[in-house]
């Protein structure tokens, strides 16, 4: 096979993440491209979680899709939850021990799903047990069930490694690695390599895992052969980076010169800060290469306030959060805008409103970021579509912040944050660090808000001068000033910065068009939609539908001319917004910026990402006349 979709599932806290990571390393080591999404509940232990991967031997995949060819589960909830996602003829790896389990003996499963399944089971004559379900799908859907007795495996290994079975049981999730690796025919030495990468000098862990993986691998191959053997990879990268969105941002910030990050823990942003903290001391070949102070504050209000404080001293400073945290930062954001402070807010959108679906994804905070905080001030809002974009954008965010002396909101989402991808490592040779008009030395009386320039030269606290700041309207020195003429000038000075940014930042960097030029259907999207939209457009092309994709990357300042020009090239009924929200927010942004109404939309707001299969189908439906298609797929 050249391309493969698989799901591995099990209860939260059962080691699934580690298994997925080892599989991904092994696949990367073998040169395959991988994209994986992790879906989990807001829960620590016991609820169902799964990893959904696309693996390719031809390219680095940018999308997820259904149905999948393989489902491998640690428990019965996985089988119940995902059997419908299996392609006819697909493979199901499961634990023989759970054959007698039923929906009723699955307390962790949500009632809604239970109810739906119960109805279906009744309809299909399934008695509610895993066994009867498996019988049904192998009969009707020609699924190949591969039952393994997980406890037998553990017992066998337990003997080999002389560890009580109760302790060996914590390696259970490696059974899945063994099975999947065997079926895909991944080189065993590459799995070992991955174990070493993962566990470093914890030799015992490596050894024990290896034993169990090899055992299951051999068993599966022996009984079934490499059923889903992946073709040798055609990609020719010498190295691949494996990183989540959180990881990529952390790396980029460090490269970009971040020196102060404060945060308050929140899903799905916090992992970024933890990663930065683990690099707080930067050492290269034993030599000091800088350091980052990472502070866990008492709340998000303190996080943004201390970020601003640090930025005033000249340190590149940022904070990372998601919706609830950003909602608390809104007042601080306004202060930064008023005082022309360069800060970066990395904003990972998750399912809202309120606590919402805290561990699921969305793109529902765009309009909020565009207008957040009372009063008017310039802000830059940029949104990244994939891991690579996110890397460069995270660095550019600091450049823009310092260049225009204004807060920058870097919009990402949970899909990106938690999805792990194999990437070509970034090329740093073209990266610029632009600190804007930063004074290292001030001569004479200093006016922080020198009105003779729209962007006043910036000295920092601690330089050889003094300055004042206030959230009140201020004069050139930063003192409170309520005079109407001063007010008008200072207000205009601030707002004008956005106009300058709009002039200076090339529109080609603020939106991308994917298409060869002869398209007559246009998908419009942003953020994580990018990957699946590009793939969809390609697929549609092969079906004779000439579709292109407009990816909007910067919403403030908005690339009005280019977007307008592009939109004008298409028939109204063939322009379709594609987004992970209800309102099709980017189309509201488009309308309010360029006046063009995008009348068609394909939206999804279940917290799960848009899959290629459903997007392709939805576009066809829209072309057949539907105005709005709401996507729902994915458990």
């Amino acid at each position, binding site marked *: 096979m050249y391309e493969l979709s698989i799901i591995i599932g099990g209860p939260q806290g059962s080691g699934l993440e580690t298994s997925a990571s080892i599989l991904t390393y092994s696949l990367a080591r073998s040169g395959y491209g991988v994209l994986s999404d992790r879906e989990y509940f807001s829960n620590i232990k016991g609820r169902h979680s799964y990893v959904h991967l696309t693996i390719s031997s031809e390219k680095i995949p940018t999308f997820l899709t259904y149905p999948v060819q393989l489902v491998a589960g640690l428990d019965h909830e996985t089988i119940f939850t995902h059997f419908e996602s299996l392609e006819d003829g697909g493979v199901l790896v499961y634990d023989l021990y759970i054959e007698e389990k039923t929906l009723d003996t699955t307390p962790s499963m949500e009632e809604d799903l239970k109810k739906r399944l119960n109805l279906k089971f009744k309809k299909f004559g399934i008695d509610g047990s895993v066994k009867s379900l498996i019988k049904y799908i192998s009969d009707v859907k020609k699924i190949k069930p591969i039952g393994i007795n997980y406890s037998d495996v553990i017992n066998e290994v337990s003997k080999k490694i002389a560890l009580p079975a109760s302790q060996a049981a914590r390696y259970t999730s490696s059974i899945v690695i063994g099975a999947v690796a065997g079926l895909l025919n991944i080189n065993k030495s590459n799995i070992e390599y991955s174990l070493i*990468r993962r566990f470093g000098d914890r030799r015992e862990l490596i050894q024990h895992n290896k034993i169990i993986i090899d055992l299951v691998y051999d068993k599966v191959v022996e009984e079934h052969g490499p059923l889903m053997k992946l073709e040798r990879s055609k990609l020719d990268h010498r190295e691949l980076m494996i990183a989540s969105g959180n990881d990529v941002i952390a790396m980029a910030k460090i490269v970009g010169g971040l020196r102060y990050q404060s945060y308050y823990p929140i899903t799905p942003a916090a992992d970024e800060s933890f990663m930065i903290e683990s690099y707080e001391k930067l050492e290269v070949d034993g030599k000091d290469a800088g350091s980052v102070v990472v502070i866990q504050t008492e709340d998000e209000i303190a996080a943004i306030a201390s970020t601003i404080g640090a930025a005033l*001293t000249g340190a590149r400073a940022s904070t990372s959060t998601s919706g609830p945290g950003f909602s608390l930062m809104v007042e601080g954001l306004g202060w930064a805008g008023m005082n022309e402070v360069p800060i970066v807010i990395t904003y990972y959108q998750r399912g809202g409103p309120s606590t919402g679906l805290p561990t699921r994804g969305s793109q529902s905070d765009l309009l909020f970021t565009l207008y957040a905080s009372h009063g008017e001030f310039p802000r830059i809002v940029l949104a990244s579509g994939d891991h690579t974009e996110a890397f460069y954008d995270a660095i550019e965010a600091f450049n823009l912040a310092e260049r225009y002396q204004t807060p920058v909101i870097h919009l990402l989402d949970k899909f990106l944050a938690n999805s792990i991808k194999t990437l070509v490592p970034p090329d740093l040779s073209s990266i610029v660090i632009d600190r804007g008009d930063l004074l290292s030395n001030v001569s004479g009386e200093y006016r922080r808000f020198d009105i003779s320039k729209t962007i006043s030269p910036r000295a920092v606290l*601690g330089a050889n001068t003094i300055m004042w700041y206030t959230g009140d309207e201020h004069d050139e020195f930063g003192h409170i000033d309520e005079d109407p003429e001063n007010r008008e000038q200072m207000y205009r000075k601030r707002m004008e910065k956005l106009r300058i940014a709009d002039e200076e930042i090339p529109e080609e960097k603020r939106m991308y068009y994917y298409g060869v030029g002869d398209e007559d259907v246009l998908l419009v999207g942003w953020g994580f939609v990018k990957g699946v939209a590009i793939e969809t457009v390609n697929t549609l092309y092969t079906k004779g539908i000439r579709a292109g994709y407009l990816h909007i990357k910067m919403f403030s300042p908005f690339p009005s001319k280019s977007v307008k020009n592009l939109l004008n090239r298409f028939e109204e009924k063939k322009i379709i917004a594609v987004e992970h929200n209800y309102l099709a927010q980017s189309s509201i942004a488009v309308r309010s910026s360029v006046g063009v109404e995008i009348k068609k939309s394909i939206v999804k707001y279940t917290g799960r990402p848009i899959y290629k299969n459903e997007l392709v189908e939805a576009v066809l439906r829209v072309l057949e006349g539907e105005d709005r298609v709401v996507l729902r797929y994915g458990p």
Partner: protein
Amino acid sequence: MVRKPVEYQSDVWVDWCPGCGDFGILASMYRAFSELDLSPEKTVVVSGIGCSGKTPHFIKTNGVHTLHGRAIPFAMGIKLANPELTVIINGGDGDLLGIGIGHFIALGRRNIDLTIILHNNTVYGLTKGQASPTLKRGLKPKSLPKPNIQDAVNPIALALSSGYTFIARGYSMMVDHLKELIKKAIQHKGAAFIEVLQPCITYDNIHTVEYYKKRVYKMEDSDWNPIVEKIDEREDKMLKALAKSMEYDEKIPIGVFYQDKCAVSFEERIHERIPTYLENPPAKQKIEQDGRPIIDNITFKKIFNQYIVEVE
């Protein structure tokens, strides 16, 4: 070179009500700054919002007038990014002990080398005299239509309970005494808190100059010794200070309640983790070379090698 107090005066007209206790605080700051010869460039006065919040504008050092209740976290960012700066916080009782009390307590947990000057006037001055968190229940200053229905907090007890390592009370009309407290607080290495009794002559017709005159006395006039020199004195001195903090009605003690000289500041704690921190803090690091990041492709792969796989 010693700068004179007047050299710390900015050009801004001080628009507090004539006779306001804030003038005494300002005067004490000028004098303390002068006696410590603080460099204006290396000093930052940070404030919240309120009458008290205007303080930085009247001082010729760096000044950051932040948001209501948020002076502490702004100051934290400034100080941690550039620990060589002397950072002083002025805030009102509403500001620091009402909307901002979460940060007040968090600072105690961190013991960052900051000095807090609390303008305690028992009211929200700038919003026209509502009850602040330090106004006792049952009192009815001018602007209140009915007597205050909420109890007061005890600022000294709260500071003690949250870990401040220098805790004092001053009185705005005793400028020299207050000046000394401010000097000590600035010199203290850690989170320092001074509650200043500050008559609001416009809205607080209860805690007037006469009121305080009758009640205020200096702890240092007795054999009060608030200083923890050895760790095992902590609990005892803290309990004594707590007991002292409850004395507030008939007689009001001023002076130092507690000082822990054994505590490790937050900056030192960071320094333990990052040995280059104090000499090369965030604000001073070079992050680019000729407009390029200091991390190049090779160093990138070295630093993040954990994330990179060589394809077989």
